[in-house]
């Protein structure tokens, strides 16, 4: 069991790191949200694999379902914010938001 757990942890860490790199490197707001989604995928894979390795798969499943519901709400709110930013600044560049500073 611990051998397969190691594999899942390896891939979950790779997903989280890919998302973090995307967050650091990209400037498009929609790309940044996609990177956040990928970090979330890594975390849910980590939760379920830990549940599988420690024989708590049902609790882990309940947590992942909760996370998915929260993710949908987060994405809807963030996309609405992005549309409003596009209306205000005329672009999707994250650097255009520096104009907000006091």
């Amino acid at each position: 069991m611990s051998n397969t757990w190691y594999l899942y942890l390896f891939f979950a860490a790779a997903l989280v790191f890919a998302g973090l790199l995307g967050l650091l490197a990209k400037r498009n707001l929609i790309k940044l949200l996609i990177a956040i989604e990928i970090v979330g995928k890594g975390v849910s894979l980590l939760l379920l694999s830990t549940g599988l390795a420690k024989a708590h798969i049902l609790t882990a499943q309940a947590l992942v379902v909760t996370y998915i519901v929260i993710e949908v709400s987060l994405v809807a709110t963030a996309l609405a914010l992005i549309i409003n930013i596009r209306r205000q600044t005329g672009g999707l560049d994250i650097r255009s938001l520096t104009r907000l500073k006091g």
Partner: protein
Amino acid sequence: MILQTALLAVLVALSVLAIALKDLLRSAIALALASLVLGIVFFRMGAPYAGVFEISVVAGLITVLFILTIALTKSGDEVRESKLANIVFPVVFVAFLAIDALVMKRLMGKVPALARGGEAGTFGEVLWKGRTLDLVGQIAVILAGVFAVLALFRQRDKHE
């Protein structure tokens, strides 16, 4: 197990593709395919409810939301990404994968996790009896999301 490893590798490849592709529509579709593969992985891990939610909600609903937003914001000027990041991204990612492969196996024994011990009942019993507060929280989160979207799309009053 070989099939599961191959699925996980495809999942990571699709996720990297979703970040690296220049066309937003293509990267949204790559994200949807990654969710689909993750849902299949969940099914094969013995977690059908999480798999169903992942495929129907994340691969379906969130992709629709992304494509809708991309269509609504399409006519904007292109965002210029930095060229340095395009070179550094793959190098750092490959270096991290190498470190991950070397370190993770030894690190695993030191990380505290859930104590081993069986659980009884079905998914429904665990969800409704063990995690009732989570369900209440989910309802609150959904309501908060609906109100946030409503507030953001609100029309301006005439006398403002």
